[in-house]
């Protein structure tokens, strides 16, 4: 019985691996459909909570898949779900990386890579805006966001300092009873 469950976890997430273009966010609707509606592994609320946890923790948000696996079937579930989600796309990335490197001096590959860069940057910027919209609820959070932008632009120091500062500022504001 348990083997069947682990197998189903593996198949479910392996098939979602190629949908997650740009990150797990693209695959989230698909993951939700499978995990909540089709397999009935958890309800909506648990799913949302697990995702919030994955965002709170460091690392790529795709670790939500590990959390889901853990919730379904403990450590084995976590390992299987994570491997199934990450390995197929990683193997593809490895292969493509090698092809691009082998032909790195081919002019069209050079042009393709340089041509993609502006779109890449635009997409990262867009992601930041989406995050800011979700996170910025009031003056304080907007200020924290802007301060973090300035910090990155003006210093070569580890960005984690800005995270720590934002956390402390927000915590202090709460403690002092200031509005957000």
């Amino acid at each position, binding site marked *: 019985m348990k083997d069947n469950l682990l197998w189903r976890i593996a198949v479910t997430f392996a098939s979602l691996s190629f949908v997650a273009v740009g990150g797990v966010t693209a695959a989230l609707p698909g993951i939700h459909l499978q995990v909540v509606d089709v397999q009935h592994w958890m309800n909506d609320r648990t799913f949302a909570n697990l995702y919030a946890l994955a965002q709170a923790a460091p690392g790529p948000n795709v670790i939500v898949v590990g959390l889901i696996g853990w919730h379904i079937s403990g450590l084995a579930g976590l390992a299987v779900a994570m491997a199934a989600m990450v390995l197929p796309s990683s193997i593809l990335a490895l292969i493509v990386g090698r092809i691009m490197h082998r032909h790195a001096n081919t002019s069209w590959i050079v042009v393709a890579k340089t041509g993609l*860069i502006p779109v890449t940057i635009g997409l990262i910027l867009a992601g930041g805006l989406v995050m800011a919209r979700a996170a910025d609820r009031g003056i304080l959070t907007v200020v924290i966001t802007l301060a*973090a932008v300035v910090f990155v632009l003006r210093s070569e120091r580890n960005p984690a300092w800005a995270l720590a500062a*934002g956390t402390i500022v927000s915590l202090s504001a709460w403690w002092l009873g200031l509005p957000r």
Partner: protein
Amino acid sequence: MQRDTDSASTFSAAAGAVTLRQLFAGFLKIGLLGFGGVAPIARHVIVEDRAWLSEEEYASVMGVGQVLPGANTINAAVMIGDRFQGIAGAIVCLASLMTMPLVIVTALGALYQHFAALPQVQAAISGSAAAAAGLVLGTALKMARRLHPTATAIVFGLLAFVAVGILRLSLIGSVAVLGPLSIGTAWLRHRRKK
């Protein structure tokens, strides 16, 4: 590290220039500090802190990683690890990137029931989420500034930003349209130079 100015996107550092141990430590750090988003920390460690890749090399790795399925930073970890230490490097980078996040997230999962509702916790998370958003915005702007974009590049960057960030169009669709267009203009520019 000598730069090959002709092929703008080759890794100028040679295979083996970064050891497995260094890859392990670097990506462990990235995983540990990547709150709210791994990209800013990843760029800081890889480009600024350890100078494994140049700004442009990193941007092109991220570009390929974005177009392929899978999280960008995970794809980047695999490609960068492979470049310096082959399959062993790819595995080491992937494993060290994911280990601390997985450990922390399961620990958080256990504590969540008890602490999530606490206003202190919510205040802390709210502050860190706001800062994380700023880090991503700042990193994109910093990369843009350091890459000295042409006017055309800026236009495509803005188009991608507006399409996905403001109009909320589909990511895959936007890349499918803007990617080839941007590459096309880069190709035209390249032809004109010859």
